[in-house]
């Protein structure tokens, strides 16, 4: 944990340590939301469901819906070296990541393998499993502004964020509320994501402001999030949007 705090501090201080020869520095306040397309892995604790029309299946996951969304807030410092069209940004970022699985179709629950004791096996009827994680991380971004001196200017960017998990909570919705007393045990079965993950993205948007843009609105596409970010689903790729308020330093 001490190592992570030290790493975050060193990387986020990077923009402040750049040579004074840079032309401009901005402080950025960012919020954003991403929606990630994902698949349900073949979890060893979920019983497969029958195909609606009885055909062959080697992939039970079509009956389980999976979703992932990610929202974040960040404070960044952006600086422009001698070439003013290219900016580099880094800072601190808080990410809230939510992944969820639920049954598709009727009945609206799936069977979770709860316990095996000797020759006795227990299933629980579960409607939904959700995993919510919080991360503190460091964003690293490069932005290119091909045009300037206009009220609305396009920009393009690529970036990555290094994320360190600080908290995770697993939530279960049971078909029978009397089973709520076993939520903690089910949480242990679901497990937790890895302590660290790196994701990447591309971004394009519009910067508003003629000489010193004060606001940008961007579309984030694509967003790549690794399997390490969730023990419940397999993220693939996604898209999102973000809003940045810019203050010159």
């Amino acid at each position, binding site marked *: 944990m001490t190592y992570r705090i030290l790493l975050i501090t060193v990387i986020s201080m990077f923009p402040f340590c750049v040579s004074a020869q840079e032309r401009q520095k901005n402080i950025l306040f960012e919020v954003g939301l991403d929606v990630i397309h994902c698949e349900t892995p073949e979890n060893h604790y979920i019983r497969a469901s*029958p195909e609606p029309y009885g055909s*062959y*299946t080697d992939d039970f996951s079509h009956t389980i819906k999976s979703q992932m969304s990610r929202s974040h807030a960040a404070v960044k410092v952006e600086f422009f070296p001698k070439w003013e069209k290219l900016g580099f940004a880094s800072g601190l970022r808080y990410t809230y990541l939510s992944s969820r699985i639920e049954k598709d179709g009727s009945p609206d629950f799936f069977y979770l393998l709860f316990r095996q004791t000797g020759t006795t096996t*227990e299933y629980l009827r579960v409607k939904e499993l959700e995993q919510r994680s919080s991360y503190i991380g460091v964003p690293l971004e490069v932005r290119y502004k091909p045009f300037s001196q206009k009220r609305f200017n396009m920009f393009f960017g690529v970036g990555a964020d290094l994320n360190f998990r600080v908290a995770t909570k697993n939530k279960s919705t049971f078909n029978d509320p009397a089973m709520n007393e076993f939520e903690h045990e089910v949480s242990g079965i679901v497990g937790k994501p890895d302590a660290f993950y790196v994701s990447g993205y591309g971004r394009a948007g519009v910067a508003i402001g003629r000489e010193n843009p004060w606001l940008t609105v961007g579309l984030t596409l694509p967003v790549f999030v690794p399997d390490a970010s969730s023990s419940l689903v397999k993220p693939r790729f996604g898209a999102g949007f973000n809003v940045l308020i810019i203050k010159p330093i």
Partner: protein
Amino acid sequence: MRYIYILAISFVLLGCDSDYELKQSVFIEDEASPGLPEYSEWGYNTFGAYYGRETFVSNDTDVPLNVIHENDVTSFEFNGILGKRYYNSSQDNAFTMTVTYQGFNPETFEDLMDLHDVVIDLKAAEHTVVFSNTFGSYQAEILSGQFQIKRAQYLLVDKQPTQVILSGVFRMQAVVNGQAITISDGRFDIGVSADNFFNYL
């Protein structure tokens, strides 16, 4: 008042069928044995074996296993199809394998837990295997073979007893209707409850 009765009966009937999925089949093909279901212990209500070079497998319409107890004999009646597996069982390829186990006397489906880790030597004279199709029934002359219940599980769902899951493997070499045949790579994973357990008193 009549509508209240109808509604009440409807709710009762719906509640009785809350584990409908546990009675259905989940056929996940075994990549190592094409045409056969994977060996599993989830109670997926499937079975399969190679009957010579053809597949003898469960389907989605027939109850895959009936367990019948009568006069000191318990019979395991596997109902499926011989040949390609289709969604709807065709009368032309309906096929049944009945394995009888002498000296085992369950009174309820829960007593099937005594079959945990039991191996039945099919060559023993007191146990028989009968194959049936639309043309008739044929008792096999067993040359060698075993029927093994690797695991019996007493299944609780939301803490309520529901069924006994029997999972295992089988193989045999036999003469059936004058023809030598090998039944290989047999596997089954089936839930037994009051619906498919029969006790003739």
